[in-house]
């Protein structure tokens, strides 16, 4: 879910810094005093919490933190094995069950705190694919509860070599120390005394366990989040994480608090439907949010300054390309998305007034057209409808034209999608080409 390319690039540079051996390993970023509150004697394998309430709270912290999205795959709950392909090699998520040999059974609670909140693991530094930069904000209480919950997980033997697929120099974990020196803020969550409790709770979820900014904030060339563009939308390679500020054109400016709560808790606000990595986040994490927490997220997001992205000027609808695309839309899209772009509530995204799809970056729409997509499966919305792929049916120009039509019809306005953008993503996603016809 992070921007692999940029993180990878950053790692490359930082590796050089680290290799230079500069004594800059700033004591601050490595200072583990925050973990002193945790027990340093009992191993997870020897511990089984009986505190029912703490276990329950810990499970909720796990949901807030979306741990299972990466750590639960075919091998079993929390047994790891999720291949995260980056341009610089493959990282594999670790086994975090209490198995002493292949999991984290040998960790004490203090080791666990160091791992989760500071990226200092049992085999050395963690890669920032593990969002410890955000988890650093987790409170001691939440961490104690999470520890209690982890003790109830069934141990699974599943040996994983997390960075075996990372070639030199990216396989040097020590390099992350350099990255941490530059970018890791080793401070916990601070309540803002001026703001009310709901807003503080929202900020805690967004910046801490929810690690929203990992995707929704753009990153600099060293792979660190750009503070001035905080939550204003970020390209994460195959997908685009939209602007979460109150911008009325491309952000959440026209969404009600209930819209946002519904989106988090069901995967749809009635207009948009989550897909791609957000669908995973909804399935594994946000659908479990309490209504109060989901509304708190809204309160916090709405308190942020809206991004300054201006309204786009709608493309003219009377061009031949647009009129051809209107027919193509009716033939290919309208069965599910509706003749007026109205979609099917909670199941198929509407296009009309779907602001998340109107950003300058049209990666999500291009991706869905080329590779298809699938909605999340949630307790309230069971369908998890699929969008079929059109890579075999449309060339880059046709995809661009049809997207320009949906982004500039029914009151929508968005910058033009160019055919070469579609072409680049077609190659990057490994999508097929339009079928040759005689």
């Amino acid at each position, binding site marked *: 879910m992070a921007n692999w390319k940029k993180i990878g690039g950053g790692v490359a540079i930082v590796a050089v810094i680290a290799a230079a051996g500069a004594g800059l390993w700033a004591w601050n970023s490595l200072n583990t005093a925050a973990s002193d509150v945790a027990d340093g004697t009992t191993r997870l394998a020897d511990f089984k919490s009986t505190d029912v309430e703490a276990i329950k709270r810990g499970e909720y912290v796990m949901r807030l933190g979306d741990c299972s999205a990466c750590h639960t795959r075919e091998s079993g709950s929390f047994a790891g094995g999720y291949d995260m392909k980056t341009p610089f090699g493959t990282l594999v998520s670790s086994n975090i069950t209490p198995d002493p040999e292949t999991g984290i059974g040998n960790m004490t609670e203090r080791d666990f705190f160091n791992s989760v909140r500071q990226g200092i693991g049992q085999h050395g530094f963690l890669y920032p694919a593990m969002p410890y930069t955000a988890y650093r904000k987790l409170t001691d209480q939440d961490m104690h509860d999470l520890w209690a919950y982890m003790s109830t997980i069934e141990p699974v033997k599943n040996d994983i070599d997390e960075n075996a697929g990372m070639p030199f120099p990216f396989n040097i974990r020590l390099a992350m120390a350099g990255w941490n020196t530059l970018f890791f803020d080793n401070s916990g969550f601070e309540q803002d005394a001026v703001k009310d409790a709901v807003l503080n709770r929202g900020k805690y979820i967004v910046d801490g366990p929810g690690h929203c900014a990992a995707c929704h904030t753009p990153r600099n060339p060293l792979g660190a989040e750009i503070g001035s563009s905080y939550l204003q939308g970020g390209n994460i390679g195959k997908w685009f994480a939209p602007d979460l500020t109150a911008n009325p054109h491309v952000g959440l400016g026209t969404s009600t608090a209930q819209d946002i709560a519904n989106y988090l808790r069901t995967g749809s606000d009635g207009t948009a439907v989550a897909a791609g990595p957000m669908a995973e986040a909804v399935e594994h994490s946000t659908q479990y949010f309490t209504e109060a927490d989901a509304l708190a997220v809204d309160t916090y997001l709405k308190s942020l300054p809206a991004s300054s992205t201006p309204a786009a000027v709608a493309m003219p609808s009377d061009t031949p390309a647009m009129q051809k695309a209107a027919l193509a839309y009716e033939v290919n899209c309208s069965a599910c998305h509706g003749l007026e772009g109205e979609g099917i509530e909670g199941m198929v995204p509407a296009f009309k007034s779907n602001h998340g799809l109107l950003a300058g970056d049209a990666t999500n729409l291009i991706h869905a057209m080329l590779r298809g997509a699938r909605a999340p499966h949630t307790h309230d919305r069971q369908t998890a*409808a*699929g969008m*079929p792929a059109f890579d075999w049916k449309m060339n880059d120009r046709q995809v661009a034209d049809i997207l320009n039509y949906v982004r500039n019809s029914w009151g929508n306005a968005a910058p033009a999608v160019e055919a070469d953008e579609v072409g680049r993503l077609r190659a990057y996603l490994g999508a097929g080409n339009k079928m040759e016809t005689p």
Partner: protein
Amino acid sequence: MTIERPKADVVICGLGWSGSVMAEELTRAGLNVVAIERGAWRDTSTDFPPAVDPDELRWHTRRELLQPMSVETTTFRNRMDQTAAPVRNWSAYQFGWNVGGAGTHWAGMSWRFTPWDFEIATQTRERYGAAKGDGMLLQDWGVTYKDMEPYYDRFERIAGTSGIAGNINGEIKPGGNPFEGPRSRDYPTPPLKDTFWMREFREASDRMGYNPFTIPAGNISQAFVNPLGVTMGPCTYCGFCDFHGCGNFSKSSPQACILPALMRRPNFTLLTETEVLHAVKHDDGKTAKGVKFITKEGVEGFQPADIVVITAYQMDNVRLMLLSGIGEQYDPVTGKGTIGRNYTYQTCGTVNGFFPDKYTNPFIGGGALAVQIDDFNGDNFDHSGLDFIGGAGIMGYSTNGRPIQNMNNLRPGSKRWGSAWKEAYARDYNQGAGIFIQGTSMPVRDAYLDLDPDYRDRHGQPLLRLTFDWNQNDKNMLKYTVDRSVEIMREAGGQDIVVDNQAEHSWNPYMQHSSHTIGGAVMGADPTTSAVNPFLQSWDVHNVFVVGASAFPMNGGYNPTVTVGALAVRAAQAIHQTYVNNPGPLVKG
């Protein structure tokens, strides 16, 4: 090598409508369920995506959603003194061949049966005297319409059925079917819209004093969220429903209604491309201990279970009972035995007409897009002076305008080849319209199912043998209802009328208007005339339940699906509410 699987609470043999409904109910009640389906996984967005134009040649002409003949066929004969031969092309029988079963490729006509159907023996005797049923094996179902109403309601809610109520709690509603059994509430979604022909049929039959109504449809009219939290999409009237999968989540089917919820339940396991060979009984023969199966690779295995639910196609339900030795084979000579008894079909005809200077626009279609009158269905009219019981639904239908299928639907005398045929098709395609007469089918002594003595399937197990021809009652019924239909076609202005009364010739499985093959493991309150009790539990082996149209003791003038679904809900609830707590016969025989 054989596979011994971990024991399940329930094993379900066949994951079509019945299997999906059963699995959904039983897993929701907390039971651990394994379903075994011999076809492959099929999913809306990957197997029937709207990105691909509906392929009539593949799905309708070549019938690729139907089980291949190489896997299993049946043998058939009209009379007991004949030697049965294998059926070599599917027409009347439409075995499903995938997850979703025939529920994936059905048209979507979503009827309830009438109160009369369920009590056919009693009501016929009371209204006309016992002699009226002579020559037929009339028997009540062991449930009444009133018993069934809550289960009909539940299944319609799962399926999202579109329609207009004609009778809510005894109050007759304008625009609906005044003859239907009382419903507890309206349909989940409103009726579909009229096409040109539906409007003409509606107005003509209304002028004649009949009671036209839009039929209940599984091609749903608007988006709907069912009680399982699954959303369906609105029908686009594309007309590629029967024999096709639906790409826009609009056709009531296991894919669109149940599987999205069911597949994610941790207590549900599905084995695809795996065929159940037969159930295996314990040594005492009183209960089953599981089912024997074979994988696509030819590896045999055993699935132990406390409860065996047989939910295959109607014919395979009967065949699996016979192959498993559950119950006694029916003998038409002695009348003894129950398995194979009361085989019925559907007695159908069509009346086509042509409307010069009009555009019928048949490409606006839906599998269940039709207006019907029930004035001559079931026992809705007085049979005192008539030489039959039962009747037919008479519908003006707009199911499809598929170009290959309709190319023979031409004015009489048209050439059937060459440029003259092409001209005729160009002229008639957009002027033709049809009435479908879907009639009841009554059980008789010599219409039955048994195992063929000669022919076997690829695993060496005997094929099912069908012995069937039209009986006199049904022939008389169809003649009467076809005549009424011709009158309606004339009133509507149809010219060059073409009548096809299927019962005028001996039955054969190749040129048929119906796929509704019924009975053979029928339900009832009397164990000497029924294979299963009113909860679809085998009278002989109490942990085996047999669910499907195999349970109907006769066929009504309707499509069977919704009644199958309702019976499945009822059987499943009986299992998890009663049977699991106290395993044994749910009804005293």
